[in-house]
């Protein structure tokens, strides 16, 4: 069962803007697009909106955009796609979700989760939350995005436990994949997308 290298099955927790959220046990290598859209599984995006992105392996994994989801849910394929299999907590969000807002939620979680033992994570997650918060609030300053990216680089691979990496990987990918949304936030002091409801 599974692929040649990733054998067996795995339970994926499908959540977010999805019609049929829940736990699905599928073979490794199962197609992500199918998991989301197949009526037997996710059944498509809530209110039939357009898919904006997926966090495929829990809050700590880099994002996949809509055009990247035709991918097998196994260790190797997801790494090739620039993300990770992680915990199998698949979070789906649709076109009307502000990526800055998503990242604020995530970094809020990680900041709160940081134990405080090592410097980069203890200080860095809090600083990142402050920066993303102000961008989200429409108070971002030119240079903030570069600063965030740089701080992420100073945390990645520099902490005792993987929480530091976990906190910064989705942010780095969100900046890479949705840069225009971040820039819009800073220039226009509001969201690029119509974003009036939450998960």
């Amino acid at each position, binding site marked *: 069962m599974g692929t040649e290298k990733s054998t067996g099955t795995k339970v994926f927790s499908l959540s977010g803007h999805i019609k049929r959220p829940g736990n699905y046990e599928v073979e490794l290598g199962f197609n992500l697009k199918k998991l989301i859209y197949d009526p037997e599984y996710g059944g498509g995006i809530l209110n039939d909106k357009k898919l904006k992105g997926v966090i495929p392996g829990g809050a700590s994994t880099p994002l996949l955009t809509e055009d990247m989801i035709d991918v097998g849910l196994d260790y190797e394929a997801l790494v090739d796609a620039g993300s990770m299999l992680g915990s199998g907590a698949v979070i789906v969000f649709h076109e009307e979700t502000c990526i800055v807002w998503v990242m604020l939620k995530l970094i809020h979680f990680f900041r709160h989760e940081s*134990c*405080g033992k*090592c*410097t980069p994570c203890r*200080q860095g997650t*809090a600083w990142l939350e402050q920066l993303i918060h102000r961008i989200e609030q429409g108070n971002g300053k030119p240079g903030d995005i570069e600063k965030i990216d740089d701080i992420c680089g100073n945390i990645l*691979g*520099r902490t005792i436990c993987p929480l530091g990496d976990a906190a910064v990987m989705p942010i780095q990918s969100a900046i890479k994949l949705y840069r225009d949304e971040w820039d819009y936030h800073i220039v226009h002091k509001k969201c690029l997308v119509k974003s009036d409801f939450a998960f």
Partner: protein
Amino acid sequence: MAEVAKKEGSTSRDTKTVTLTIDGRSVTVPKGTTVLEAALSVGVQIPTFCWHPKLKSIGACRMCYVEIEKMPKLQVSCATEAADGMIVHTDSDLVKRGRRAVLEFILLNHPLDCPTCDKGGDCDLQNLTFAHGYDDSRFDFQKRRFIEDGVESTFDDLRIGPEIILNRNRCIHCYKCVRANKEAFGEYDLGAFERGNVTEINAAPGQQVDNPFSGNLVEICPVGALTNTDWRYKIRVWLTQTVASVCPYTSSGSNILFFKEKHQNRVYRVTGRRNDDIDDGWLPDITRYGYQIIHSEDRLRTPLIKKEGNQETATWDEALAVIEKRLGEIKDKKGCVCIGGLIDPSLDNATLHSFSKLIRRTLGSNNVDFRIDYRMLPKTSSDNYSILTSRPFRIADIDNSDVIITFGSDLLKEHPNEYLRIRKACNFHDSRVFSLNPYAVKSADVAELELVYGIGADEAIIAALCLAGVEEKLVSIPNPDQLKEATGFALMTEAAAVCGVEPDQIKIVARALAKARKVTLIAGELVTRSRDRENIASALCNLNRVFGIEEKGQIAVLSRYANSMGARKLGVLPDPPAVVKSELTKLWGGWPDTEPRNTDSMLVNMKKEEINGLIVMGADPIMLYPDREFACEGLEKLDFLIVCDLFESETTALADVVLPICSWAEYPGEYVNLEGRVQQANQAIKPLYESRPGYEIVELIADRLGQKLFESDEVRRIEIEKLLEVDNGLSWPDSFVNTGWTNEEHDDEFTVPLAVGDDPHHCGHRTEKASSLVNFCGEAYIEISPGLAANYQIEEGDSVRVESPVGKIIVPVRISDFLDNDVVFIPRNFSSTPVTSLLMRKCRVDRVKISKVVS
């Protein structure tokens, strides 16, 4: 590579080595060494915050990054074990960027209040930021501020203990304070609370940071988060210079640095001067704050002469003239045997030696002793007790002893450095510790097993151990019957029953002793202070014989004061061991032909008016002698008493002439620690007021009596050197020694056994003058077990009257966390409540009765 918990490097038992390359240099280190230590060993500096040479690495601050080839990420050198073939770069661009980032993170919320911070100029964060950091900040938010009582302020000054002030805003979360407290001192009065970037260091809820090693936390804090009232805001560090010295309160002789102002004649603080053979860089608070007595307002400033019952200020000349006249009179009328001398064994070699020469050569008697706070001293110095004080002992060897036994000692109070060593042996080397005491002590908190035996049954518990060795066939000795006869017990169970300890527990200790690869056995003040010390020492000699302790380790009664060992080696005893005596005879060309008189017999003879004159150097017998009434009676009968001291005391109050002596900071001196190691205390400041060093006073007195003690300082130095070279080690008895134990009858009225010793924040009679130490503990108390308190219906803080057949005192109650039998403890350090007034010199066990004072 996985980060490894660092093993304490200096005493690693591993002999394998690894070779790696650091910044192009090949380095070979023992296996288990961290990359950081390997780098340090060849002088490559790597900046650190959370690393401490004596603590386990936690890799928290991330300041010590290095780049190791073939490893994609930066590695923290303090938590990475050096491995063969590693190629390490400590200053590559990547490393530099990593450090800069860490400093940026640390500084985000740091208040940067350096101009008003006491640590300014002495701060690791300041130094490393200058060396490796950005000169600007990219952080444009308001800094996090801790809020106390609704007030948010940079000056977050929280008093978390009698001495320590905490500023949480400045804390950089290196956790060294909490780790040292826990790992090195076994204390939990300080902790880290909350998590993430609101983590805060603080005192444990409802507690004060007041453990007897708490001063170290201030010293190791890399920033100004922990400061103490001792040093805070008094002076800037760059206005001071350091002078190396040693501690006059501990017999191990902790190595210290005085910080003195360059132009003023004043010492501002004391810090550690790490010596891995002695103190590992940790100072007990008595050492750290005890220096304050130097500048106490109460210092004696000038000589005093008693005129018509009042002591009046005098010049040195006047005082010496009186001494010349009065001592001369006694000498002429009654002879020299009528003059005696008592000296404090924390004084330096020169003073001790001059003093002994004054008594022996100028005055021509053997009335000299340094043992002032012990009862019923032996007549000779060649007894079994003296053997145990003269055998080789090394503090550092505690580290690698797999079995450690403490016997009759509240080590924490008597020998704080050795206590920490034992903790370390437990933490880093899994040594097994056994504590044998007649009452439970805090020091036993590291022990695997604490045997609390019946008070006064010291010989019996040792006998039980010896017999267990034989009965359990753990050892084979040629003549077991002789052992039985010597101990007075036929069976181990008999001895165990006498001391009230389960035979099984005794067997555990005996087994450990027999199996041990290396043993350290430390016997403490309970042995030395006991009336029957010779019996107990004999029992220990038997124990050594049965288990061959010294052949695989060390066994000793540790000397108690800073220079007791020096005093012994220099023969400042009425009847020094033969080797010392013959060296002295050789040096001086003669030996007084008088009966040797120790402190006890001097006091007896004073009472009988057969000793009429006494010179007391630096001691306060009334306060310390374990029978106050007896000491007073003797001293009061004297015709002429000279007392040299730093402060007025009850003894100086009786004196005809009082002479001010210098503290150990005011002249260079040599001290011999309990291992026999000679250590130098340099002069930090000029003599204060009109005080003079002890040896100078002694020489002035000798001059007046018509004898030049030493042709020159050089002659004195050579004499001392010769004596120190003499091996005064006595050899073990060659058969089992009788210990003859008998149970002491006691009065039905006085039933509660009383233990007397030092408070953990005090030593002897002088530390009362150190204000910081008084902040920790400023008055006497009685420590009693919760059970006994319930019996008497007394609560914490109640006042109780403590009575013995000879005296009574009133003290507040402290209910002890660890005492669990009927023994009570009262510290002897407070002149307002002299506990020695309850003691009787002829008792084996002092007993008292307790009653609540109803107000």
